[in-house]
């Protein structure tokens, strides 16, 4: 977006929805990012060490900077905020710019989740109405439905947790499904050898720590694992159900009915009401509104509703707005209690 006016118009439309403008720091502690996203995220941040030896980095996105602000100011009431500025992130794709201009808006600390989700989408649509485009798509997903499905499946708890943890990493998730179809995480020969060690360890002092874990902890997990094997046939069936679920893609007004048909067919005791979704309109402005079960996997921190808006303008498809619910982000950054949060970011770098 080259026009400054357009950018100002977008900011005005967000403000008109009752959001308050805030300024965010450009530099944050790298530890927050690594703590949340793991060591590999280091590759994407611009970090440096200050005179006290603390590792700092340029904000890789504004949502994290905003969540840190909420946390550090010790806020606990509802906030409707918006901000605009640059985020700095390295990319493996040489064509990507390391500086990304972002406009974001969020509702933090409110328990009225369904209405807040709707309000964020409405605000995104209002901001979008400032742009000229030919047509587009509003895609809506919900990570929570996937979580509920997994909780109902007949697989050991450790497998449920594994699948939930890696939903957002598509390639690895597919590897997990392949492994779920076999029984390769328990090797009977090795288990026999380890059982001897198991008996020996039973007689040792249970509180002894071995590389950060007590003998008691190790034996308990060993016990659970051995007593909880899976039949390969059961794993295959579960994998089939998951794969089929992830293929559901339909106009938004059919989301509940398609899901309920799927649940019934696979004897899963779940029912979803259509009003669970933030809208039932298949067409809003020039956008087709779609539901997809697999959508929402691209970012680890989404926990519920997730959406994106793609528009077609001058023969180009542009991903213009992304958003969703991230109820665990602030607690992952250090808050002792769960802080509900939902928001969206507008890409204003498109050309």
């Amino acid at each position, binding site marked *: 977006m080259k026009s400054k006016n357009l950018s100002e118009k977008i900011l005005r439309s967000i403000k008109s929805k009752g959001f308050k403008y805030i300024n965010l720091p450009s530099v944050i502690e790298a530890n927050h990012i690594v703590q949340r996203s793991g060591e*590999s995220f280091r590759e994407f941040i611009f970090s440096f060490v200050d005179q006290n030896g603390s590792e700092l980095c340029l904000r890789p996105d504004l949502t994290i900077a905003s969540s840190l602000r909420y946390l550090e100011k010790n806020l606990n009431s509802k906030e409707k905020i918006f901000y605009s500025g640059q985020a700095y992130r390295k990319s493996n794709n040489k064509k990507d710019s390391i500086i990304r201009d972002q406009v974001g808006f969020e509702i933090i600390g409110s328990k009225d989740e369904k209405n807040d989700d709707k309000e964020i989408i409405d605000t995104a649509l209002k901001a979008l109405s400032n742009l000229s485009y030919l047509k587009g798509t509003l895609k809506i997903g919900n990570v929570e439905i996937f979580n509920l499905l997994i909780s109902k499946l007949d697989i050991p708890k450790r497998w449920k947790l594994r699948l939930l943890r890696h939903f957002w990493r598509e390639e*690895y998730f597919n590897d*997990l499904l392949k492994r779920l179809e076999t029984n390769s995480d328990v090797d009977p020969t090795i288990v026999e050898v380890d059982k001897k060690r198991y008996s020996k360890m039973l007689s040792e002092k249970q509180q002894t720590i*071995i590389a950060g874990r007590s003998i008691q902890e*190790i*034996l308990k997990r060993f016990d659970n694992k051995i007593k909880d094997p899976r039949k390969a046939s059961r794993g295959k069936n579960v994998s089939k159900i998951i794969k089929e679920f992830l293929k559901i893609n339909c106009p938004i007004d059919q989301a509940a009915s398609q899901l309920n048909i799927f649940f019934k067919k696979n004897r899963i005791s779940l029912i979803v009401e259509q009003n669970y979704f933030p809208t039932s309109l298949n067409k809003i402005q020039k956008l087709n509104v779609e539901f997809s079960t697999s959508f929402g996997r691209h970012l680890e921190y989404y926990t519920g509703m997730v959406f994106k808006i793609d528009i077609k303008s001058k023969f180009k498809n542009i991903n213009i707005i992304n958003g969703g619910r991230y109820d665990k982000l602030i607690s992952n950054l250090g808050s002792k209690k769960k802080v509900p949060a939902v928001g969206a970011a507008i890409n204003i770098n498109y050309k």
Partner: protein
Amino acid sequence: MKLMINIGIPSKGRLKKDIIKVFSQNKLHLFSERGKRDLFAFVKKYKDIRIIYLHAREIIERLADGSLDIGFSGYDLLKESNVNIQKKINVIKKYNFGLADLVLAIPSQWIDVQTVADLEEIAFILKEKKNQRIRVATKYPNLTKEFLYSKGVTQFKLVYSLGATEAYPLSGSSEIISDITSTGETLRANNLRILIDGKIISSQACMIVAKKSVKKKNIKKFIKLFPKE
């Protein structure tokens, strides 16, 4: 006047001996003017070749910056080096010596952990219950990080080691390690066990050439002196 070919050979250890052996098998006899401690050597009858003895890791870097034309080093060290370095060099030959695997090893008493998937679960438990990240001691941070991430382990912290990495879990400096091993003996002696699917990379000695030098006539000629294994 012919241009000088600069060749890097590891300055010590088994790798140095084996590479010098390859030279003599191909009738290339090395000599140093100032005795055994001399870090430079020449090849009899080849006045345009200069040998420089360097640390195996440094050979890779010097190839990338153009101060070496050809180098002998380990495949593990090449893959560990950063992408910009790897772009500037090519592997010409691989040898049947210097064979070793870079592996992920855990304390033997962790009998409930057999695969990397188990490790991922432990890393998660440590993070959720104790707010700690599992520490992995290694001399190979890039390969280790990439491997763990590809296997779904995202919650870990690297501890950079310069040597004797096997001692780290026992001394409390890390929970697990990744290290290079050929027989696994040192790992076992230090009460460590390799995970079933914990092999990160197989390594062997290699002849490596700087891309900038590859087209030079005398370099091509030199490479031809070493037949395929």
